[in-house]
């Protein structure tokens, strides 16, 4: 080894290489510094700037931001209308997450345990394609589907189920003038858009469940339902939790979907967008964004304890 080092080509490249060879930590440090500076300065720095803004307040008379530390802006979050926005968004995120998990499970389970060879590749691509294809185009597609003259209404007419559709639209809270102006529509689009984020980690977790465990469970007399409840589900849970990080977090922050497919009652993302834009109330907008940040901090901490990061 030492002989080889001595024989190495000289020149600047060789000299630098020798330094790296002698001190590998130096190389790691040099490699890591530029990206760390980027994320640290641009991203974390911006997050701190945002956090700082949330402790300022807006002067009601002049409409200008008062650069003095106060908790008054956070107090505003607890006013009835703002608290409702937060509750509504968290409830929506919870329902979207649970529904995504229920729809994702059979797909993930099939892909993990039964698909082999080309069907496995097909399943993988079939989930990756909608995941990565244009977000706006997908939302747009749902605008077409949910519109009053769109495909769902057409299907309801063809199947003579118009009464059912009208009945659903007349429901308080979830209904509306048409599906594309209702909570139900918003909910459907959220589930659709985030579903692949749930499938992939669930599948990754299920792929790690040893087949022996399932066979052993059956040999010991458990029926399929018991095997699912006591063996498969607990082992898949870290994957579902990992997927829920995305479905939950993305629903908390999204403002495009409720704006395009939804009614006039705001969600957190829309509130942030209008507050910082037309209203010019940056402090309250910033305080609003702290809510999903805090929720996600707790969520990520719990997910880490459940081992969800291992399947990401």
């Amino acid at each position, binding site marked *: 080894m030492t002989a080889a080092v001595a024989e190495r080509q000289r020149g600047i490249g060789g000299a630098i290489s020798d330094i790296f*060879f002698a001190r590998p930590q130096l190389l790691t440090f040099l490699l890591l510094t530029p*990206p760390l500076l980027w*994320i640290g300065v641009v*991203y974390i720095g911006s997050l701190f*700037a945002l956090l700082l803004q949330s402790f300022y307040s807006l002067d009601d008379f002049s409409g200008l931001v008062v650069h003095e530390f106060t908790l008054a802006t956070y107090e505003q979050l607890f006013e009835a209308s703002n608290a409702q926005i937060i509750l509504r968004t968290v409830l929506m995120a919870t329902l979207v997450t649970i529904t995504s998990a229920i729809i994702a499970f059979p*797909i993930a389970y099939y892909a993990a345990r*039964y698909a082999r060879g080309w069907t496995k590749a097909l399943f993988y691509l079939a989930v990756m394609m909608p995941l990565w294809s244009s977000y706006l185009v997908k939302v747009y597609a749902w605008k*077409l589907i949910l519109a009053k003259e769109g495909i769902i209404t057409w299907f309801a007419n063809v199947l003579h189920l118009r009464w059912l559709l009208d009945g659903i639209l007349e429901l308080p809270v979830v209904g509306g003038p048409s599906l594309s102006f209702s909570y139900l529509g918003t909910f459907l689009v959220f589930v659709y858009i985030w579903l692949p984020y749930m499938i992939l980690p669930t599948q990754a977790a299920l792929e790690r469940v040893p087949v022996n465990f399932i066979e052993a469970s059956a040999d010991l007399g458990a029926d399929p339902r018991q095997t699912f409840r006591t063996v498969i589900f607990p082992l898949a849970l870290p994957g579902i939790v990992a997927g829920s990080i995305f479905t939950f977090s993305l629903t908390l922050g999204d403002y495009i979907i409720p704006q395009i497919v939804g009614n006039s009652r705001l969600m957190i993302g829309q509130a942030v967008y209008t507050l910082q834009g037309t209203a010019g109330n940056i402090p309250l907008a910033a305080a609003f964004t702290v809510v999903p940040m805090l929720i996600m901090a707790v969520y990520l901490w719990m997910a880490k304890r459940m081992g969800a990061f291992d399947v990401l």
Partner: protein
Amino acid sequence: MSSNANRTTPLGLRIAAIAGLLFLHLPLALIFLYAFTTEEKSFEFPPPGLTTKWFGIAWTSRPDIWPPLYLSLQVAAIATVLALIFGTLAAAALSRTRFFGRETISLLFVLPIALPGIITGIALRSAFDIMSIPFSVWTIILGHATFCIVVVYNNAVARFRRLNGNLVEASMDLGANAFQTFRHVILPQIGTALLAGGMLAFALSFDEVIVTTFTAGQQTTLPIWMLGELIRPRQRPVTNVVAVFVFVVTLLPILAAYYLTREGEHTGGSSK
């Protein structure tokens, strides 16, 4: 695993899985159908007739589409290059050694996609405000590169983990210096992973709308143009045509990335 192969699939499971996949794909198919509809004002289903004239109209008589398209391509290209550089450096550093704080640092790189986009957007915007940085192409790129780094990082880290350390040592023993080893031994092995990461970063940036609305000022990228058309429609079929175009432009790099990384590792990122 062998006992796995010849089991029969429960019918209910098969139906649920197929129904789930159809749910994921039918809406996308619909976009293609609507790009050919003769109905201009509404989203009437089924379309009363089919025509290809909207492709011609989008191409020739809607000059408002071109500047946003160029801006999107420009932003995506530069953001991808930046993401490739920074993402690869981060992956190389974090995969070669273990040190205190390594977990925290890798969490930092994933944070821009784990937190909702609106937070990244408004955070960058307030930072630009505080530092009096005017909106430009570069403010958009800054935002895009920040979340694109993650995508490259994820792809590169997966490949670095599989990298054969013996080859690097052999190269050194045979007298190559660190740069020669990187160029002739490491780069050919991680090349396809980087290409895949770059493609995904490009697709992600080309399609990004939430962060962009906060960092673009008055400028319009293609997704922002589309968002405008969604809120205040002018010619709906033209928007459908652009939607098909955007779909294809984001999809091709994804398929390429899948092709490049299909052996043994997942196409990284797993998230936007």
